[in-house]
């Protein structure tokens, strides 16, 4: 510690190491909270249900998503990325997941929301298997921290069904 440069270097290195440590502890503190999110989706209308010229089915839906994700936010949360996926089984694939809508929730105040919308992304099947198909709508989310590990989880909502015939 005999010179200015030596002391400045030692201080800077130590300060950054301690900073990394408190960020790690801050990230760990996220595991101490137990979130209790809720969500509900109503399918209001099937706008279109056709077989495309290339042979794949396509659906256009209007739905109302309402959710309360406020308990996911901690002091270490930057934003929550949320998306709604339709999940169903076909003879060809044991699991199909099609993302219909997504959004970014920037803060806790915005996390108790509802949205009335058509599907943001196209609901297209690999094949022609959607007539009369039962499907689940699953709300997935990724909690993006300010520092540390990202956590992802979901809520599965069952009981949705597509019509037997095209319209």
């Amino acid at each position, binding site marked *: *510690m005999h010179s200015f440069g030596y*002391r400045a270097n*030692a*201080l800077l290195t130590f*300060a950054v190491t*301690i900073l990394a440590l*408190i960020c790690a502890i*801050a990230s760990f503190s996220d595991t101490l909270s137990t979130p209790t999110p809720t969500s509900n989706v109503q399918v209001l209308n099937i706008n279109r249900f056709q077989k495309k010229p290339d042979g794949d089915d396509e659906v256009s839906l209007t739905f109302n998503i309402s959710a309360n994700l406020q308990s996911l936010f901690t002091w*270490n949360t930057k934003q929550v990325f949320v998306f709604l996926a339709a999940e169903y089984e076909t003879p060809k694939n044991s699991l199909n997941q099609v993302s219909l809508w997504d959004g970014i929730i920037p803060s806790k105040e915005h996390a108790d929301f509802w949205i009335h919308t058509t599907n943001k992304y196209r609901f297209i099947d690999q094949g022609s298997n959607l007539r009369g198909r039962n499907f689940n709508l699953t709300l997935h989310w990724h909690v993006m921290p300010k*520092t540390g590990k990202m956590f992802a989880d979901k809520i599965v909502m069952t009981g949705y069904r597509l019509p037997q015939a095209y319209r």
Partner: protein
Amino acid sequence: MDWQGQKLAEQLMQIILVAFAVVAFFTGYVLGSFQMMLLIYAGGVVLTTLITVPNWPFFNRHPLKWLDPSVAEKHPKPQAAAATTSKKKGSKK
């Protein structure tokens, strides 16, 4: 800075930084503000820099006793041997 001063500077640096880190973390946690934690810690780093990095007088309270110049003259450095070696190795001093 003398030896005691260097040790003091190192100890002060470590203690103040850790103390500020602890205060910053708990303040941020209780207030629910990550930004507050970083601001308090940054303030702590600046304060520590001001206290420990410059060569303050209180770091020099036990100064080294260098040999007095009048006493040093009575014991001259060996010059003759140094002169012959320096001719052979011209660039090295």
